[in-house]
Every structure is written in C-alpha cells, then in structure tokens.
C-alpha cells in the first residue's frame, strides 16, 4: 500500500520534524510504501498539492503529517465542487476544515492520529493496530464505546470533527447536512459551558 504524508500546515519553527521522518520509517517497517511530500510555504501551493495528492489513483492513503491551525487557510484555494478524491484522507483535529467538505462530497475520511503520532504518541502495539486497520479497512467495529443514557449507539454514517470548527462551519457551503447522520465530536480543552450552549 502506498501512503503519501502531506504537510498541509507549515512546519512550526519549534516543530521537531524528526517525528515525521521516524513515522515514515515505522510505515516502511510495517510494509507500506511511504514518503513525505514537499513542505510549501504559501497556502495556495499547499492547497494545490493537497488536491493533487487526494486525487491520485496510485495512492491508497493521504495522511496529514501534523496538526496545525493553518488548514483553514487552504479553503479559499480549493474548488470542492470539482475535487476528485481517489484515495482516503487520514486527518486530525484541525483538518476538520478540509474533512467536512470532503464528507459533503460523499467521500469517507479517517479521523484521529496524524502521521507524526506514530512516533510521537503511539507505542508499538498501537502502531500495529493502526497498520492492521489500514490493511483490512476500517468499519469502526474496533471502537470501544460508552453509552451514557442507555440508548443504542451506532457508528455508521458518522460526520464530525473538532467542535470549535464544526460550529464555525455550520451553515456554510463547507458543512454537510447533519440530518439523519450520527455526529462525532472531538471536544478538546474547551469549557463545559461552551458545550452546553452548543
């Protein structure tokens, strides 16, 4: 399987890109063909590379290298109406900006760990589990769920992402219709009163 690791956000000055490089090594050791793509400075260039990469048919996964707030900068430079997605995007929190319009277009997205997490956060058993999921395909049966009101949960037709970004995109051209879908919210370091209002 071929995985292209994409720098959608510019490298932060304090970022340790050694983690991304190490992630490439883990992927190679796991039997994947993986490489990191060029790190452009201007959002228009990064948007062009993003569109090119997700449209490639010779790629199985486009994996975001690392999180960062600059994902939103790409939105004005992408024509989602004509976007062709021919492999699966793996994205993390901040890329809810890009994942929602892709979901709206009918293409699935994998949400969770960025590529850097393979070396920065995950241990060997967790890496093996992710590699297994990538090999076999993900249907969410691996998720361990806790129901808090006793009603049956389903992980089919999930749409969602980071709550702050969801709230920003609701009602815009980028947000899919939530009716009849199951909503997944990453709720990270946000006051409880904000959730209550939402």
């Amino acid at each position, binding site marked *: 399987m071929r995985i292209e690791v994409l720098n959608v956000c510019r490298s932060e000055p304090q970022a340790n890109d050694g983690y991304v490089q190490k992630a490439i090594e883990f992927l190679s050791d796991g039997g994947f063909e993986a490489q990191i793509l060029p790190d452009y400075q201007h959002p228009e260039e990064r948007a062009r590379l993003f569109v090119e990469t997700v449209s490639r048919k010779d790629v199985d996964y486009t994996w975001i290298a690392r999180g960062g707030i600059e994902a939103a900068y790409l939105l004005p430079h992408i024509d989602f109406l004509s976007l062709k997605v021919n492999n699966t995007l*793996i994205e*993390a929190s901040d890329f809810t900006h890009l*994942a929602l319009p892709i*979901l709206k277009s*009918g*293409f*699935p*997205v*994998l*949400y*969770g*760990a960025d590529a850097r*997490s393979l070396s920065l*956060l*995950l241990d060997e058993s*967790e890496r093996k*589990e*992710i590699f297994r*999921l*990538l090999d076999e395909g*993900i*249907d*969410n049966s*691996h*998720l*361990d*769920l*806790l*129901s*808090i*009101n006793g*009603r*049956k*949960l*389903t*992980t089919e*037709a*999930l*749409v*969602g*992402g980071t709550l702050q970004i969801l709230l920003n995109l609701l009602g815009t051209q980028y947000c899919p219709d*939530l*009716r*009849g*879908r*199951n*909503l*997944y*919210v*990453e*709720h*990270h*370091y*946000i*006051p*409880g*009163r904000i*959730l*209550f209002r939402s």
Partner: protein
Amino acid sequence: MNEIGSLLVGELIFMDGQEQAGQDVQIDLVHEVMGDLGIPVGFLKTSHRRSLIKLG
C-alpha cells in the same frame, strides 16, 4: 441538532477555568443537554488520537 441520529464524544477531559472536570461531571452535562432530546449519547473509551475513526 435534534435531527441527528446519535452523538459520540471523543474526549473525556474538559477544561473549565482552572479546574479540570471529572468524567462524571462531563457525562452529567452531556446527558442533561442531549438526554431529554432522545438522542443516544456516548463517549469513546479510547483516545481518537491513538486510533482512527471512519467518518462518512
């Protein structure tokens, strides 16, 4: 919001001011907001940052 099928929340730890709310507080809060609407509500027990979730 009341037309969604169910709600999953991927983080169990919220920050509120200087206090870090416990899991029970969070569950009560979400239950209060969503429970009366009849919407199934749940949490992921494992961190989404350590795995992958299929959206779509």
